[in-house]
């Protein structure tokens, strides 16, 4: 049994768009090997049937990407967003929350939790004494959420993008793996959440990381997700998307602000709120 050329091309395109990882002709067997278990789980007779399922099923697309991009995650992925977090977004949130001395962050589509824990390391280093912070890590996959709760990573995962000083400071060995310290795990809470459906009750967030996940959804759903996220971001808050993503063609309710090498999205308040008119969209 071998995967149809059209199926392979679809999958290769999907992976390339999302991760820049290339599955070139010759690698069909690898795609097949990695998708076959998922196809079986979904009840499909073969990979081609499963691939046609992928075209309309965002959750399965997510699983497929995960299976096809093994070891593609890393700590402080792309680096620039984390720099923006430390240098601008966190100070901004601190300035706005002097009364509560509390920061609330959402790591949406958190996968195995490296984003959430990367942020928790930065909070440990930069949050002033006497302040508390909470990172809500959500994902549609309960298996992923279990991984985040456990906070354990393989040696190969630990090698990716994590300064050695952070490794020794925030992790300890457990068997063949490394486990995030209890202090950092306390900052991160997990919750099951499907972005494409109505959100459960959520706090108001100072900072939202929604990186590299909108791509899985069609245009209408993207708009809907952004609308619902908008309602959960504080007026002074920020939204970070993936490096190649933007709200530009999607909605007027976010302003884009360049912070270092990243685009930060600020929620535009409705006209009349706080006595301000809705600002015109800045030329990009």
């Amino acid at each position, binding site marked *: 049994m071998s995967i149809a050329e059209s199926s392979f091309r679809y999958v290769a395109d999907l992976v390339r768009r999302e991760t820049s990882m290339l599955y070139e002709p010759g690698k069909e067997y690898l795609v097949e090997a990695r998708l076959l278990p998922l196809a079986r789980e979904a009840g499909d007779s073969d990979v081609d049937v499963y691939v046609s399922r992928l075209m309309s099923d965002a959750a399965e697309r997510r699983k497929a990407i995960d299976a096809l991009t093994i070891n593609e995650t890393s700590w402080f992925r792309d680096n620039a967003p984390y720099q923006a977090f430390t240098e601008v977004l966190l100070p901004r949130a601190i300035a706005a929350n002097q009364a509560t001395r509390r920061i609330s962050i959402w790591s949406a589509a958190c996968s195995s939790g490296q984003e959430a824990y990367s942020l928790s390391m930065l909070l440990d280093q930069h949050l002033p004494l006497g302040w508390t912070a909470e990172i809500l890590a959500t994902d549609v996959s309960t298996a992923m959420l279990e991984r985040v709760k456990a906070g354990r990573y393989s*040696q190969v995962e630990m*090698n*990716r993008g994590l*300064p*050695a000083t952070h490794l020794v400071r925030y992790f300890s*060995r457990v068997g063949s793996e490394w486990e995030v310290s209890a202090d950092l795990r306390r900052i991160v809470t997990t919750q099951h959440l499907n972005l494409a459906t109505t959100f459960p009750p959520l706090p108001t967030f100072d900072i939202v990381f929604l990186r590299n996940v909108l791509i899985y959804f069609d245009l209408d759903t993207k708009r809907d997700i952004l609308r619902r996220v908008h309602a959960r971001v504080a007026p002074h808050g920020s939204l970070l998307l993936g490096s190649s993503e933007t709200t530009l063609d999607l909605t007027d309710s976010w302003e884009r602000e360049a912070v270092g090498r990243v685009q930060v999205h600020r929620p535009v308040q409705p006209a009349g709120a706080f006595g301000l008119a809705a600002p015109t969209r800045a030329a990009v």
Partner: protein
Amino acid sequence: MHALIIDDSRAMRSILRRIVTDLGYDTTEAEHGQAALDHLEAGLVPDLCLIDWNMPVMDGYQFVQRVRDDARWRDVTLMMVTTESEHGQIVRALAAGAHEYVIKPFTPDAIVDKLELLGLLVAEVPA
């Protein structure tokens, strides 16, 4: 940019050499810490040293100690690449002056990530 690759395994030196030459580095190899030190004493000034821990004659930890003690080599970046993966060993190496630490087994991406953290990715990679 120049990398000094220090490992008693030719296979491992070959793996590391391929990774950094793909990134635009020139390389020199040494089978153990003493041979590496001899290169430095002879005037080699690498930007980066990739250092195994367990080697005959002089191990990587001793090499790091010797290099960090010497003002001539203050600007050389020292990255351990080793199977020694106990928490305490990593702490020791960093305390002795290693700048970064990669645990074997590692993927090429891991080395690239670390070099990016250290600001040691060559700006222009030859075609």
